[in-house]
């Protein structure tokens, strides 16, 4: 799972380099997002513009990370679930 982090006008942007978020790559994505959350980042954009396939396992893994957010959960859910 290739994830490139950048900071655009104060917002952390995580660009997913893979075209697929699936059962093979979801654990790695979850751990990468978890590492960002552990640094105290509670607002970020998950840029899925390169992603053209997400299966239910991938969706669940993203959701698990969102659920670890102590605050702004609705904002994060909206970002993670937004249209690609």
């Amino acid at each position, binding site marked *: 799972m290739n994830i490139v982090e950048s900071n655009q006008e104060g917002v952390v942007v995580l660009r997913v380099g893979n075209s*697929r978020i699936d*059962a093979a790559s979801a654990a790695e994505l979850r751990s990468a997002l978890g590492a960002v959350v552990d640094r105290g980042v509670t607002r970020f954009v998950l840029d899925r513009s390169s992603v053209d*396939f997400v*299966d*239910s396992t991938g969706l669940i893994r993203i959701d698990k990370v969102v*659920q670890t957010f102590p605050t702004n959960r609705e904002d994060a859910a909206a970002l993670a679930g937004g249209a690609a």
Partner: protein
Amino acid sequence: VTSGAAPALSVTIDSRMACVGPLGEQVRTACLELGMTAGAAGEVELSVVEAVNNAIEHAYQLAEDGRVEVTLTRQGSRVRIEVRDGGRPMPAETLARVRVPRVDPADTPSLPEGGMGLYVLTQLMDAVSYESRAGKNALIMERRIDRSGPPSSTAQPSRT
């Protein structure tokens, strides 16, 4: 297989999650070649991926020394996809009991850990059935080639 027509696609993979993505892309390509819209081909791809994920996770319990065989055959105006494995059979009535996963964004955790895949494929396909005989399991899915929108009715699961 049942019609005698040559499959448009026949692929056997090891029971490893890393093998599923490339298989999914082959399925999508085969559907496009049959004349499906990009959206419909993507829905078949997703359904096959969910079925193969289930075979690896549940039938083989994530053991990587199994095989999953996928065949895609045109049958008139429909495409028939068979996903076969040699692992543990799905418990009786599992397919018949598939229901809408409970999703509540205000609750934690909001998405269930399991049961999503079967729900997804029964929603996207026109017909879904499952059979298990002599250590061989097969999930059989059918979808109209010219349907690009939602189904006229939810796939009626059956088990033989």
